[in-house]
């Protein structure tokens, strides 16, 4: 079945693909390299070989308390994703296993809420948050991130649940399984991979959300997006430190992303591309 390919052609294609891939990856690589340079080296012209100092990483922690925004990012992204899953699992379940004529309309409507520009409701949300003392609080931002990712969570779960064959439930029922046993022993094991993919992808989306996290926080609840954005008006030379902070901010999610790239396509295209 395999197409016959000459080794020469394969080498040619490989070189082209690797050059393109390295060019695309280069900004990330260069940030990592710069994080290992001293501030003088960082602005001394192009060089791919750093002196290998870890000082920037230590400085970012001691001077800017890096651990705090990092923990905020973890709490906000994981918290909002779990909250969204709790709300979304029952509805995705109902839509997948007891669809009605209106199910498709409801799904489309949910997707359409994603199209509402965030900035259009910036002021009302700001005023509501201020009234209830939710500005710069983890609780407020968790609610916010839950709301904006909920439509995607419902959609993703729906596309996964829909693929669980309904006949298997009937078979279990015929074998005399109670509803409870049906849920615990038949459905849950089949649903877990879909739920896990949804969890992973939405942690990534929430981690990188950079409108509400910047608008609604100042210091206490500020996650890494807001922390890094605060570096945009620099005092003095700071590129190596910025690179160290950036590297730490993207590393965990980059690794999660590498593992979830297959689910990413399914998830973000709502099952339209597999």
């Amino acid at each position, binding site marked *: 079945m395999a197409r016959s390919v000459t080794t020469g052609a394969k080498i040619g294609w490989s070189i082209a693909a690797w050059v393109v891939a390295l060019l695309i990856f280069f900004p990330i690589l260069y940030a990592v390299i710069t994080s290992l340079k001293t501030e003088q080296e960082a*602005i001394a012209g192009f060089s791919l070989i750093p002196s290998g100092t870890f000082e920037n990483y230590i400085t970012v922690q001691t001077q800017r308390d890096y651990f705090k925004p990092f923990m905020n990012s973890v709490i906000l992204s994981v918290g909002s994703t779990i909250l969204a899953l709790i*709300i979304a699992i029952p509805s995705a379940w109902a839509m997948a296993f007891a669809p009605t004529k209106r199910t498709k309309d409801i799904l489309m409507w949910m997707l359409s809420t994603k199209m509402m520009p965030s900035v259009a409701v910036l002021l009302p949300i700001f005023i509501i948050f201020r009234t209830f003392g939710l500005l710069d609080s983890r609780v407020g931002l968790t609610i916010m991130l839950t709301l904006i990712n909920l439509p995607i969570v419902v959609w993703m779960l729906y596309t996964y649940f829909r693929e669980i064959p309904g006949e298997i439930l009937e078979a279990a029922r015929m074998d005399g399984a109670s509803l409870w046993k049906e849920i615990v022993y038949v459905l849950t094991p089949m649903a877990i991979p879909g739920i896990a993919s949804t969890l992973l992808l939405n942690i990534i989306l929430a981690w990188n959300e950079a409108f509400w996290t910047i608008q609604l926080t100042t210091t206490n609840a500020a996650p890494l997006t807001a922390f890094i954005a605060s570096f945009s008006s620099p005092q003095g030379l700071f590129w190596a430190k910025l690179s160290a902070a950036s590297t730490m901010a993207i590393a965990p999610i980059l690794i999660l992303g590498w593992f979830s790239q297959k689910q990413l396509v399914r998830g973000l295209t709502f099952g339209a591309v597999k």
Partner: protein
Amino acid sequence: MATQNTRTLARLMMAPSVVVLLIWMAVPLAMTLYYSFQNYNLLTPQNVSFAGFFNYQYFYTDPAFFQSIWNTLLLVLGVLAITVIGGTAIALLIDQPIFGQGIVRILVISPFFVMPPVAALIWKNMIMHPGYGVFADIAKFFGVQPIDWFAQYPLFSVIIIVAWQWLPFATLILLTALQSLDSEQREAAEMDGANFFNRFIYLTIPHLSRAVTVVILIQTIFLLGIYAEILVTTNGGPGYASTNLTFLIYRTARLGYDVGGGAAGGIIAVVLANIVAIFLMRAVGKNLDK
């Protein structure tokens, strides 16, 4: 098949997410609509009065408004063009038999996972900086005057950064679609004497059209709301040269403390987003119902 009981249960199970989203849609939007007809500035909160259509008129006659609409269009279309064309080319390249395909894939999709402020600051400081950036180093190597990207081509610079972030997404989806192309079909075409060019036009492109539609839909949703990349690089400037509609409303509302003006801008943004959404949904609906 579904009994009355399961139908009631299904409704109950759907209620939380539907109610939550309904509130999330209706309440802030109603508030925005209300504020858009008020004179309301956060600096003078005691002087609130009915404004009629003044806020809309104010927003609509502001020259920055049309510039921001134009910038939004350029930003969305520019990024879409780069990512769809570039993504197709790269997907075709990776789909060839190559050494280390897995690693190449990982390298190519990585920018998608970089948070917007980090992506923008890496490009601003380390790549495009007129004094110390890599582009400047290259220019100096060839003895050319380095370009001050964010001063001379602010919007284009933002487009480059955003396109870099979204190129992986387009590539990954198009690659997935390519790999689902039936290899027997391709071999049959090869045997019938179709060359690479013909196979691409008559086999690959029709096969990719669905994936391209999806890429355009999803990216447009996110691209209309681009904010952080502008905030940390150009801050909308110089002047309004890189201000999109999102950023203009943010400027009016948060930096000008003008609740009424910001709300009017918000309503205009909602109307525009709906026009785009209807247009897109129709195109996508056609393509997805196959």
